[in-house]
């Protein structure tokens, strides 16, 4: 008798819903176990986290602050993954987007009125991200170079470049030695809504809707789905595979670049350290957990942001390390990764009949 994985004969809707739920439950239990080992009451901890993230206006605003870049980069990464293009370079695309936005603001401050300056900065972010993602896309389509590692390496080049800028030529001469660019003039600040949360949230939600519309309701989106599912089939139907891949990945990079532009124009108002703190990597997890569905991404991004903010709160209130939030994020993923198998396969016990194999 042995255990065997057998492919399912139909999409199990129950599996699609149950698996994420069960995974979440498992991770809650695992974390609770961890907390108990370290002498903290799980219930108290969870509620402290929830209150921290959503219980106050301030908390909620901070959650949004973290959610916005996660949403944008998550959406960007999701398009790429739709085409089975593993864009690990969201972090770098975000960084360069921030750099471009800062550059536009710093150099065109004198010449353009506020709103125009802002639009220019955001556009700069879009273009920088598109370019940075376009390079690995071209390398893939023309030379078949593996994108996973190239995009990863380009993250570091981008981060180092931005460091060079704010430590060097763009450094604020009046900054008391603190590394970072000069502060943007206030008319170049992205308007905020509540707390530090800015209108980027509206743009992000809008982008999510547009992206969903493109994927599900336009010819181009349909072609992208086909390319992602089978490049052969796409070619056979006359679809221009290479060109579409490059366009879509450029879009992916553009969205990540926009996220960076948001951070710079809406949160920090200058180019400084703290732009690259891992949103690009967490975005991959957001996209994956949302099963690449643009409509689910804002929710998942919000949830992960809440874990992060909740973690910070937990540190202040319960004396637990802030890293609690990160640990939980990791712990959620393992059961989900393991569970993802069950959406496609069933576990069966097989009894070997003498002399023949099943099927």
């Amino acid at each position, binding site marked *: 008798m042995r255990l065997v994985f057998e492919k399912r004969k139909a999409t199990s809707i129950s599996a699609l819903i149950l698996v994420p739920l069960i995974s979440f439950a498992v991770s809650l239990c695992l974390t609770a176990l961890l907390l108990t080992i370290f002498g903290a009451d799980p219930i108290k901890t969870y509620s402290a986290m929830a209150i921290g993230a959503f219980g106050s206006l301030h908390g909620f605003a901070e959650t949004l602050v973290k959610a916005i870049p996660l949403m944008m980069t998550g959406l960007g990464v999701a398009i790429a993954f739709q085409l089975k293009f593993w864009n690990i370079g969201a972090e770098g695309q975000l960084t360069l987007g921030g750099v471009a936005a800062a550059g536009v603001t710093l150099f065109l401050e004198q010449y353009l009125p506020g709103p125009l300056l802002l639009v220019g900065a955001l556009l700069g972010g879009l273009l920088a991200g598109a370019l940075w993602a376009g390079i690995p896309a071209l390398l893939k389509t023309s030379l078949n170079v593996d994108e996973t590692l190239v995009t*990863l390496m380009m993250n*570091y080049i981008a981060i180092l470049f931005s*460091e060079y800028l704010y*430590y060097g030529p763009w450094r604020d001469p009046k900054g008391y030695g603190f590394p970072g660019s000069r502060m943007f003039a206030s008319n170049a600040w992205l308007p905020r809504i509540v707390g530090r949360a800015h209108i980027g949230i509206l743009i992000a939600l809008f982008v999510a809707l547009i992206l969903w519309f493109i994927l599900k309701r336009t010819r181009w989106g349909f072609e992208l789905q086909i390319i992602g599912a089978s490049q052969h089939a796409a070619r056979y139907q006359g679809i221009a595979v290479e060109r579409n891949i490059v366009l879509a990945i450029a879009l992916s990079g553009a969205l990540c670049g926009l996220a960076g532009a948001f951070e710079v124009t809406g949160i920090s108002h200058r180019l400084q350290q703290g732009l690259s703190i891992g949103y690009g990597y967490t975005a*991959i997890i957001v996209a994956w957990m949302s099963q690449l569905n643009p409509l689910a991404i804002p929710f998942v991004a919000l949830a992960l942001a809440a874990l992060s903010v909740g973690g910070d709160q937990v540190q202040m209130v319960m004396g637990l*390390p802030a890293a609690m939030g*990160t640990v939980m994020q*990791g712990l959620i993923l393992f059961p989900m990764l393991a569970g993802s198998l069950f959406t496609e396969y069933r576990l069966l016990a097989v009894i070997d009949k003498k002399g023949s194999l099943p099927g």
Partner: protein
Amino acid sequence: MDFVTSILTITIRAGTSLTIATIGEILTERTGILNLGVEGIMLMGALTAFATVFYSHSIMLGILAAMAIGGILALLHAFLTTTMRANQVVSGLSITLFGTGFSSFLGQRLGPESNNFRLVGLRAERILPFAPKWANDIPILSAFLNQDMMTYLVYLLIPLAWFFLYKTRPGLWLRSVGEDPYTADAMGIDVTKTRYLYTIIGGMLIALGGAHLSLSYTPGWSENITGGRGWIVIALVIFSMWNPARAVWGSLLFGGINAVQFRLQASGTSIPANFLNMLPYIGTILVLVAITWWEALSKKVGAPAALGSSYMREEK
């Protein structure tokens, strides 16, 4: 000691943890498994080693504990990717996420109350460099000798790993699994077992690399002790073209730049340093392009052909 020797000394010390981890990841990737959890495993290795040594005063125990943790995390990755056929990229990143968070968490929890929950600044036994007294005056050579036990281990590990991979039967089987799992399977090699085994061994070595950071290089523990080295290791694997013997060049390169950077920063400016720091990453991309291009023409050197894809034999 003259300038060159002192730079070389620092370079070798800086490169030690990188080289151990790189060899570990090479073994893993050679079976076709991409483990992006290196950063997380290095951090957990560093923390575990430090904490164990701090409480037990035994370096050996610390090293073993670190390797155990590395093996466990790698086992998780192997399980998720090989048995559960989950996405290798997401699995690796999850381990990095978890490892980063958990090491931070433990680091803050394990410290004494008075130190505000951090292990920073605490002193543990550490691996001291040992070198015969007479070697101190010899230029260049003293750089190689004035190192600690782990570096000496690396001197052994590199040729051993190379020999194992290219000259032994299990090494041959390992390589075949990464190149062509279907053929390997047809020839009677257990692909699954091979992937599990070398992913775990890889994880143990990666954690060992992390241990070097907290027990010798820094020493001590702080939250970002790896400073992104885990990602450099991934670049180094490509840079060395999955060949342990070449791993040393990349580590010297990255390690050397690290060392030189200290000097440059000390003198006030860090402008050239950043561009210097970019070189390894740009170099890695160029290597990737060259390999892929050349592979299309010749298949002479390349990534293990089956890297990153999952494999399952169909039942007949």
